[in-house]
């Protein structure tokens, strides 16, 4: 059905759908007043032009910020760019008050329910809750029964998924109770929208959301820490998790370390973070690891994601978890039908937010009802570990339908039937070239921070839109997108301004560097340097093609150093990524290390990583391999520059720097050793090639004023203390870094051995002579230097990273 729009041209093609609430247009087809400002702004000039601009800008910002949502087993690779619709969802202050009131009550109710389930279990004893729902749920953790978390708060972070019914009321469709995700994406979305539609944000006075995160910071640390101010961490399942980006982003915004299970250890019922400076007590954990994976000692025994002994620490009251272990028991559609009675019993209140009609089939009358109406109901599993695509009863026929009915009869308690939800629709921009406005169905995720005496609702959140048109399922896994939510202010709304309220707690500086993070920083340094060195070597080699003799030496060295495959042309090095030593494989490792240290990288830095990743994907396809190498070197130069300028120069940074220097020392000593051992080392063209490979020709020329010769070349590449490509320079810099890293212990430096072979002027003359012996001797000395650098690397690993290497095993007898 077509409807008259506020101006025929701008909303051409936007259709309301009968039986569906439309966020933008009222029943008469006119734009609702609270959307007017935004729509006017968009169509002030030319609507199409402004929507296209919004779309492009949004896409660019997402790519530059590297916002992703990982989908397991996605053919396109793990990283899928996040999709943000540049049109926000606009809600009035009145609409928002209703939502707020409902979500606040829901959060209180769920906390009270958890308190009962993990305590007296009165609701079960009184027959208000079927024991099957909690007891059959894999996230009901018996070892946590009787454990009361700090302040009696099982639920600290809560998210509600809401949908708007055709009559305009909000309905609850699901509770996110164990480790709600999405608040970080909401923050990222807002930061992008403030750049895409800055004037509209200001003109409308859109409510700010940053204050929520400041509050989160304060609340989670308050009371949990000691006088020194507590330490809070975010526990992640790792970079493969679908919302890893968000976890890293939140960690960055909150200034808390992002850690994996192996970064934490429990000693005497206290949780510690393994840091470069030793064990540091952890007071608060925001966990993104699912309930039953959190403690391999008492829960799922094979879990490598968890922290052995964590439940013991919780039991001893020595750590605060958001949310408490076992909160995931609430994530089942089976609860919905029982909630009105639970609210009445626990709070003495009627539910503000109705939930979608649900029948838990474990009750005989409910089962009979469901079987009678199966054709118009949606059947869902009660427990999250059941495998069942939710098929609509009515969509099934013949055998499939009979099978579903048999399942329902055999294990009725394992199924829930729900009325289908009719989602509301909101304007979205088509992501094609037209950038036209179309209607798509959507749902909301609203976030709450639960305190002992108050509950703060994030004034905004995440609207999730269907992949296309009017679908009643929205999910990122299924290719849907997101929207920012703009809540309009009224006289009563008071928002914390960005960064305005911070108690002194947030001024406490945290110096904790998780050991695993430091190890990745070190390898990030090594791989970035390795990629640069190999790229230069390949570039020089490709340039030397015209001179057969030089090319032969060059290609031999490339192969020895793993920069080119034994039987392939060096230009293939950029195409083939099967080799585990090639530059492409190294660059992939570099990107992987970067993803592991993401919480330490600025947005600018991360953009450089994203750019490098793009180049890796393109490198094989590019016509000219030399151009591809140029591009790669440019990105790598940005890496090096940013490492100097854009990072705090703490001990972690120092290990990154040491990694770069050790790698450079190894590469250059090997390169020179191989070169000296090759027969025509003294020829001018050969020397010129080596200087090019070491990026030193431009320094050589003005300094020596003679055509490239071996003696001056060695003077520059070995002896020079001021040239960053010389061994002496790197050796001195490494010595300084080591001294800063372990001022009290010089044994690491001793591992590096003697300074480089000292070369007198007479030596240089002898090296240029007809005899090969002096060159072979220097070659050997350089090899020893290379081995010393490797030994140093091993020592550093032993000292700083060794405990991250040990695996935990779960054993039972």
């Amino acid at each position: 059905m077509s409807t008259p729009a506020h101006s025929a041209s701008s909303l051409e093609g936007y259709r309301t759908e009968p039986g569906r609430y439309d966020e933008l247009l009222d029943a008469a087809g006119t734009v609702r007043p609270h959307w007017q400002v935004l729509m006017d702004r968009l169509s002030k000039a030319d609507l199409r032009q402004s929507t296209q601009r919004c779309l492009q800008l949004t896409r660019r910002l997402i790519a530059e910020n590297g916002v992703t949502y990982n989908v397991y087993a996605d053919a396109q690779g793990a990283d899928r760019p996040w999709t943000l619709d540049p049109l926000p969802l606009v809600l009035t202050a009145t609409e928002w008050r209703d939502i707020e009131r409902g979500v606040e009550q829901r959060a209180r109710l769920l906390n009270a329910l958890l308190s009962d389930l993990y305590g007296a279990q009165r609701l079960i004893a009184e027959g208000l809750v079927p024991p099957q729902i909690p007891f059959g749920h894999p996230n009901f953790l018996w070892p946590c029964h009787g454990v009361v978390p700090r302040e009696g708060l099982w639920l600290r972070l809560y998210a509600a998924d809401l949908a708007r019914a055709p009559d305009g009321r909000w309905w609850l469709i699901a509770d996110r109770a164990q480790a709600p995700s999405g608040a970080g994406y909401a923050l990222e979305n807002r930061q992008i929208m403030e750049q895409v539609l800055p004037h509209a944000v200001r003109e409308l006075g859109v409510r700010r959301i940053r204050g929520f995160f400041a509050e989160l910071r304060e609340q989670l640390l308050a009371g949990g820490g000691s006088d020194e101010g507590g330490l809070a961490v975010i526990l992640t399942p790792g970079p493969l998790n679908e919302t890893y980006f968000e976890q890293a982003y939140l960690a960055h915004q909150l200034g808390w370390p992002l850690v994996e299970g192996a970064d934490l250890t429990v000693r005497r019922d206290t949780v510690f973070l393994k840091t470069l400076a030793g064990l540091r007590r952890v007071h608060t954990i925001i966990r993104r690891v699912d309930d039953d994976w959190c403690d391999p000692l008492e829960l799922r025994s094979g879990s490598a994601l968890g922290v052995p002994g964590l439940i013991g620490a919780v039991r001893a009251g020595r750590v605060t978890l958001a949310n408490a272990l076992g909160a995931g028991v609430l994530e089942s559609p089976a609860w919905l039908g029982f909630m009105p009675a639970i609210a009445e019993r626990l709070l003495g209140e009627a539910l503000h937010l109705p939930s979608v009609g649900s029948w838990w089939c474990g009750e005989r009358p409910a089962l009979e009802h469901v079987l009678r109406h199966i054709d118009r109901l949606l059947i869902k599993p009660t427990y999250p570990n059941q495998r069942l695509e939710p098929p609509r009863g009515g969509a099934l026929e013949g055998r499939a339908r009979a099978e579903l009915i048999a399942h329902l009869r055999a294990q009725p308690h394992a199924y829930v039937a729900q009325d289908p939800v009719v989602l509301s629709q909101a304007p979205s921009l088509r992501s094609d070239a037209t950038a036209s406005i179309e209607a798509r169905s959507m749902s909301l995720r609203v976030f709450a921070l639960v305190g002992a005496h108050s509950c703060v609702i994030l004034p905004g959140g995440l609207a999730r839109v269907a992949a296309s048109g009017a679908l009643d399922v929205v999910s990122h896994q299924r290719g849907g997108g997101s929207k920012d939510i703009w809540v309009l202010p009224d006289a009563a709304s008071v928002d914390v301004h960005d960064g305005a309220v911070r108690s002194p707690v947030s001024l406490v500086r945290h110096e904790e560097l998780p050991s695993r993070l430091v190890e990745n920083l070190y390898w990030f340094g090594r791989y970035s340097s390795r990629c640069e060195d190999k790229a230069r070597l390949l570039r020089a080699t490709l340039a030397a093609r015209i001179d057969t003799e030089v090319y032969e030496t060059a290609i031999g060295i490339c192969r020895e150093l793993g920069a080119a495959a034994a039987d392939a042309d060096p230009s293939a090095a950029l195409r083939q990524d099967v080799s585990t030593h090639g530059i492409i494989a190294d660059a992939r490792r570099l990107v992987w290390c970067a993803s592991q240290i993401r919480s330490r990288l600025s947005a600018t830095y991360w953009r450089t990583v994203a750019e490098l990743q793009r180049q890796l994907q393109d490198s094989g396809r590019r016509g000219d391999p030399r151009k591809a190498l140029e591009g790669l070197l440019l990105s790598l130069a940005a890496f090096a520059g940013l490492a100097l300028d854009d990072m705090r120069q703490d001990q972690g940074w120092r290990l990154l720097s040491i990694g770069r220097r050790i790698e450079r020392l190894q590469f250059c000593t090997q390169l020179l050793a191989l070169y000296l051992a090759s027969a025509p080392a003294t020829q001018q063209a050969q020397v010129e090639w080596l200087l090019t490979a070491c990026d030193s020709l431009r320094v050589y020329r003005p300094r020596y004023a003679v055509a490239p010769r071996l003696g001056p070349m060695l003077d520059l590449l070995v002896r020079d203390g001021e040239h960053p490509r010389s061994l002496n320079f790197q050796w001195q810099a490494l010595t300084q870094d080591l001294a800063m890293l372990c001022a009290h212990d010089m044994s690491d430096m001793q591992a590096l051995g003697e300074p480089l072979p000292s070369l007198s002027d007479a030596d240089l003359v002898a090296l240029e002579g007809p005899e090969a012996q002096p060159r072979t001797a220097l070659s050997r000395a350089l090899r020893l230097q290379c081995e010393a650098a490797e030994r140093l690397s091993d020592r550093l690993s032993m000292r700083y990273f060794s405990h991250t290497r040990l695996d935990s095993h779960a054993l039972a007898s």
Partner: protein
Amino acid sequence: MRYHIRHRTLYRYSADVVHSHQLLHLVPRPAPFQQCLEYALQITPTPRERRDEVDVFGNPMTSIELEHPHRELCVVAEMDVQVHTRPVVLAGDSWAWEQVREALSYHACSPPGREHLEACVFRHESAYVRIKRAFMDYASDCFVSGSPILAAADALSSKLHRDFQYSPGETTISTPLLEVLEQRRGVCQDFAHVMIACLRSLGLAARYVSGYVHRSGGADDASHAWIAVYAPPFGWVELDPTNDTRVATDHVAVAWGRDFGDVSPLRGVILGGGTHELSVSVAVAPLEAAQ
């Protein structure tokens, strides 16, 4: 009967274990039919921390933490236990199994009563017990309509004993239970888990009991496992499918839970350690016979 029991567990590791958390279920829980008279637990090396507590199922549990590098962990539990004769329970006097299932299911606003409620904890899938149609099918000829629950359970125990071969070394604790059902061989843990899976798949309540059994005739003693089924009006009744018998005075219960995972004698997570070797020895000596 009165027994002296010695249970020794020895782990040998090929590399240093630098940190270790262990949960021990080695103290016999108090029950109407048994009392633990003497008890000693010896752990080498001496743990940095040791705490004696009671787990959520009411079993005594010791948790220990070792912080110093070690290549060996030895735990010796020694105890004297008095076992009483249990009241005779006639299978024919127990409720029909469907009646039990009905009593355990949910009826809105009619509270199930404390005893039924406790049984409800043991009706669901757990770490080592699956609920599958295959288990229901396997048990179906024992659970005919209207048969008293204990008569049916006794029949199932006999069927398992008949069909399954006791063969150590063929399964591990991580062998999937459906595979055990297909292969029809295993050790006492497998017999117990399969029987529990059958009972729970039928909608009944069953729990896993870990303990010791005294074997006359010079057979090797070992730690043992059996099951308990919820059989009103008698409450929980213990059956040993491995030996096709109701549990009497030859058995000493240590702990019970949903499955092996809740009550394994030693359960732990170690850091380091390389590969390991485990040896367990159990001696159950009747004291009266010795005197």
